């Protein structure tokens, strides 16, 4: 493999991992609130959170492009006040991946939180624990399987993301080109050998991700 191809693999892996970590706090918070509280308009929030999962990724990407571009509401502000660009940079890739994988993390984590017996949390309170301690010592450990599963799903989704990424970040070699984008481009240019090499790497990456999470869970259960 060429140095350029290694760069693409490396970039894809770390930007996917980083996007999973970036959405983790917000994802857990959203999942916990959805699992534990009822309020008017909850269905609307649920739907909004799930939207990126069911909309065409390119459409989601277009929305992000319009919001984050230099003339967009958020992108304009960032550019004018902080001289900070998102679109067509690695930060655009990060945001596209995060938005696309967010629903998967929230859904898994929410189910995991819902499955924690709330009686255990109540009794922890009678044993003198405050909300934060209950969350960290009872809720989180008991939900950890589902949360790790959700992180894996989010990571896998990020690895393979195509539509939203190409809208927000383009396919700039050496800067925003990810595995999926590079494979597509190789096939377009008739460079099948390159495409197959990258395909092989994708399989190895995906396998490693699933295998390591299985290994983690098994070790935890012992």
């Amino acid at each position, binding site marked *: 493999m060429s140095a350029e191809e290694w760069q693409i693999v490396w970039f894809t892996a770390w930007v996917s991992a980083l996007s999973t970590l970036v959405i983790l706090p917000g994802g857990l918070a959203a999942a916990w609130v959805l699992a534990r509280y009822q309020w008017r308009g909850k269905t609307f929030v649920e739907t909004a959170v799930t939207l990126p999962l069911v909309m065409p990724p390119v459409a989601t990407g277009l929305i992000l492009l319009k919001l984050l571009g230099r003339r967009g509401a958020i992108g304009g502000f960032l550019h004018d006040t902080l001289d900070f660009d998102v679109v067509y940079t690695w930060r655009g890739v990060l945001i596209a991946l995060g938005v696309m994988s967010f629903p998967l993390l929230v859904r898994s984590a929410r189910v995991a939180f819902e499955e924690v017996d709330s009686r255990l949390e109540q009794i922890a309170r*009678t044993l003198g624990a405050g909300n934060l301690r209950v969350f960290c010592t009872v809720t989180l450990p*008991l939900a950890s399987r589902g949360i790790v599963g959700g992180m894996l799903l989010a990571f896998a989704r990020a690895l393979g993301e195509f539509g939203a990424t190409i809208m927000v970040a383009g396919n700039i070699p050496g800067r925003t080109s990810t595995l999926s984008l590079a494979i597509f481009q190789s096939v377009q240019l008739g460079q099948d050998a390159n495409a197959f090499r990258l395909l092989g790497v994708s399989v190895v990456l995906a396998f490693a991700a699933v295998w390591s999470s299985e290994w983690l869970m098994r070790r935890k259960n012992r």
Partner: protein
Amino acid sequence: MSLVIKKISLPLASFTLEMDLETRGRVTAVFGPSGAGKTSLLDLLAGLRRAKSAFIQLDDRVLTDTANGVFVPARHRGMGYVPQDLALFPHLSVRQNLLYGHKRADGANPLFSFDHIVEVLEIGPLMQRGVTRLSGGEKQRVALARALLTSPRLLLLDEPLASLDMKLKGRIMPYLTRIRDKFRLPMLYVTHDRWETLALADQIVVLVDGRVVQTGPVQDVFRRPASVVVAGLLAVETVQPGHIIRRVDELVTVAVGSIMLTAVEKNLPADTSEVHVCIRAEDVILLKGDAGVSSARNHLPAVVGSVTDAGPLMRVELSCGFTLTALLTKQACEQLALKPGNPVIALVKAPNVHLISR
């Protein structure tokens, strides 16, 4: 201990829990059928649930007073709560479960030290195990110890023996009496088992459909259930319709079918003629052969119908013109060699024949 529960109003699925209650018992049994609101009551006391209106005071400390916006959070209430499903933390070891709520040194009551509680409940050998690998009785002891280690001011026990079989109940009960006697800790003990109530409690609160139907010292309530519902709940085994024949002051002669019984009853309204006759199975004495002369006023020739195992005791069904149930120790049963069809004489003292007007 004094526990005051007033102005409770908590809407539940099919009724509203409404009660006023004051108890100074060492162990107060909250007795009632399942679905009577017993667990909801414990949740209110522990601060895990909020009622529409409530006033709860333990000794001199007001824990809940909805009228004045007082609500002490669960973690500051000092209630040791052992729920029916025990709620042991499955991801922690026995030791970690025990230490979860352990308050070290504050108050410095050596009775509630880790070592003492572990010793009293004999938990030492279980310490390093995961709680999912404990037997039912072991889990029960760990849950009790975990609650005790918070140095609570009141222990709330929700049917602690309900999930155990007869043999295990007999093995866990001594731990409960030990807690009662060694720690001098007031307890609220939710149960629907008369044997547990008699063995452990000094006060009883009978709860039916969210309302207190009778309260008082255990012996009094068992001897004098206020209504047929209470008598049925407390499993006063013999409840028969009767008809009053004669009253001389408190001495009442009552007919159950063709059988005449003598009762002592002072709380009966003067114009009552139709009554429920209640006789607790423990109050029936059985004789084989000639009765001779006895102080018991009621001598009932009877025939043994069935003899069945009832935990530590044997239940004997007799037919003496009506069905009368007696509870005997196993030794007594063997000595009398009771078999179905045997003739016996049942003795019941007049004060043990309780009449409820119907």
